């Protein structure tokens, strides 16, 4: 069955053919389940629908290399405070790669992310998406290119998983439009990618913290953006869900060429999953580069005030003990 379908999607470029094959293998298990309960003809139908939607996803990303996303000379603060949190810093999110923002508590990671996401207007500097200032986008137009998952999210009681994910289509719909087939396909794809298909009709309030986080990620994925910003998506989650979240991030990078910026609390996680790391210390960029260059024993002592050993190949950070402030 898989062979047939790969044949069916032969119109896609070779680069995205890879992505197809990978997703296909993921879908194969879903098909297996389906054929237990339904006719063979129906499961055939399922594969076609899913397959067609994957082709759509690829055609949406017009730039196979990913979209560049940068913050230039940013000064970001909160109203009512004298000193800005981020003072004249520039950051680059590598196109189609995962960039992790790391730093100790209060180093300005979340503030920087909010500035990049247009949640706080920078006092100076500009954020460029695909070379265009994000202030020049309309609010809905920006939300079609740039997605943000905040650290804490609230939903009203009685909201189902599918309904919440449907809200991810908000920027794609006119004020009074119904759901189009594109919308439905995007919702199915997002739910599938986040691995929450089995929770589809569940009430959000009945889910565990980890499941909720996956559902929120599905909502942001339904936005189908080129750039995705995640604010500490793994904090408070158990190990299983942490790995699941980071697995989704990797899939998005590999298959959709999304440009991803993720704030991570856990340096070891950053070392493992990020292509680039931006280390923040007290509102300033301390270092930027691939994890193996950035994560050094010196950096961990200077920025995080921990004594740690760093093994290379594979890169592994092992914190030993907290350093005193004056050390």
């Amino acid at each position: 069955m898989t062979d047939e379908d790969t044949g069916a999607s032969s119109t896609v470029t070779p680069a995205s053919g890879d992505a197809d094959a990978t997703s296909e293998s993921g879908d194969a298990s879903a098909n297996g389940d389906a054929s237990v309960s339904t006719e063979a003809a129906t499961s055939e139908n399922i594969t076609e629908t899913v397959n067609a939607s994957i082709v759509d996803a690829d055609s949406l990303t017009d730039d196979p290399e990913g979209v560049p996303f940068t913050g230039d000379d940013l000064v970001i603060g909160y109203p009512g405070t004298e000193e800005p949190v981020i003072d004249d810093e520039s950051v680059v999110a590598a196109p189609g790669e995962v960039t992790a923002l790391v730093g100790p508590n209060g180093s300005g990671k979340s503030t920087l992310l909010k500035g990049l996401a247009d949640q706080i207007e920078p006092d100076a500097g500009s954020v460029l998406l695909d070379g265009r200032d994000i202030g020049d986008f309309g609010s809905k137009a920006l939300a079609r290119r740039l997605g943000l998952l905040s650290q804490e999210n609230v939903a009203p009681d009685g909201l189902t998983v599918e309904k919440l994910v449907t809200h991810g289509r908000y920027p794609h719909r006119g004020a009074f439009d119904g759901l189009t087939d594109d919308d439905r396909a995007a919702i199915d794809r997002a739910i599938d990618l986040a691995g929450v298909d089995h929770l589809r009709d569940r009430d959000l309030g009945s889910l565990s913290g980890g499941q909720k986080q996956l559902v929120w990620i599905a909502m942001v994925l339904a936005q189908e953006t080129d750039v995705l910003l995640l604010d500490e998506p793994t904090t408070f989650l158990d190990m299983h869900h942490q790995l699941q979240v980071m697995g989704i991030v990797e899939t998005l990078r590999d298959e959709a060429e999304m440009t991803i910026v993720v704030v991570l609390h856990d340096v070891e996680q950053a070392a493992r999953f990020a292509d680039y790391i931006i280390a923040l210390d007290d509102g300033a960029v301390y270092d930027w580069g691939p994890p193996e260059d950035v994560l050094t024993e010196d950096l961990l002592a200077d920025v995080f005030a921990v004594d740690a050993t760093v093994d290379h190949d594979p890169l592994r950070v092992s914190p030993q003990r907290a350093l005193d402030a004056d050390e």
Partner: protein
Amino acid sequence: MAEDIPASAEPTTDRDERFAWLDRSLATLCLGSVIIVLVAGFVQVRFGTYDMSWGAAFSALTDEAIWFNRGTWEAFLLGERLPEGVSIESRIVWAQRVPRVVVAVFVGMNLAVSGAIFQAVTRNELASPFILGVSSGAGLMILLTLVVLSGFTLVIPLALTTVTLTTSALLPLFAALGGIVAFGLVYMIAWKNGTSPVRLVLAGVVVGMVFTSLQRALFFFAQDIAVVQQAIAWTTGSITGVQWEEVRIILPSTVVAMGIALLSARQLNVLLLGEKTASSLGMNVERTRFALSAVAVLAAAASIAVAGIVSFVGLVVPHVVRNLIGSDYKRLIIGCLFAGPALMVAADVGARLGPLALNGSMGQIPVGIVTGLVGGPYFLYLMRKKEAVGDI
């Protein structure tokens, strides 16, 4: 789960999805509300100073001379004279008693939907149509009009004739305007680099306190007891003696406000996800919040113009509906469109016939007293039953 994927591709299930919001609980709620309105409405047209039997009331209600006569509808909706040849029962039922039921239906709708919108805008279950200063602004204007402007007439010279407006004709307009102005004031006070639900509610409380004090002070300047009673009836909410005139006042803005509310269900739902999420989904939160508040204030002002300040309906109805059918605003607004009239019409039966049933007096009490008496304890019951009350 497996069936869900092809579902979206098949046209038959497309239609099912479009009506997916109409499920058993919502249908039951709507049907139950319609039955309450019909039964209470029928009781309302049967009883009164002019005594008639159930049969006579029924035949007057179904009178073909009313239903299939263009003239009567022009009389009701455009203010023409009621045509000749209508029986006395039909005349009493249709000219005196039916408009009261119709006004109650519209007031109930407006208040319930207005409350539902304010609960989403402030993300607080305890919000009502009057939370942003609307009731205190309207109340102050009611007192000002009755006490300070009593006996005042406004003469507007037009090309061919002059229009003379007396205090009582201006009162509904002034009351509604007072509510809208107070809302504007609350918004201005709350605005500082944007608003927040908490700041809006606090500003509403502050403006409400000041205006209520001024309103109370004005009571001392009232010259006679009749003015005071009229002021109390307006500030408690009453639809005693309403005519088709009041239906004509409330109908246009009701159609507009309810239409916009139904179409804004998705905006309301996204607003419930919190400001951060709403704005990251591309919503202009400030603009949406203001526009939705304005629609809710329009609905509240329309009901104030005909009925004064009817409390509790706007607080209790959305709450009850939410408990029955959940917090999806598409369903919630539809539920409120039906449940609001049910509470209002039923409460008005109590306001009009309650004193008669209790001690045989022909006096009537303001319907706002009944809604408070019914709604208050029910709300308390809900509060005791639920674990968490407050945030939606």
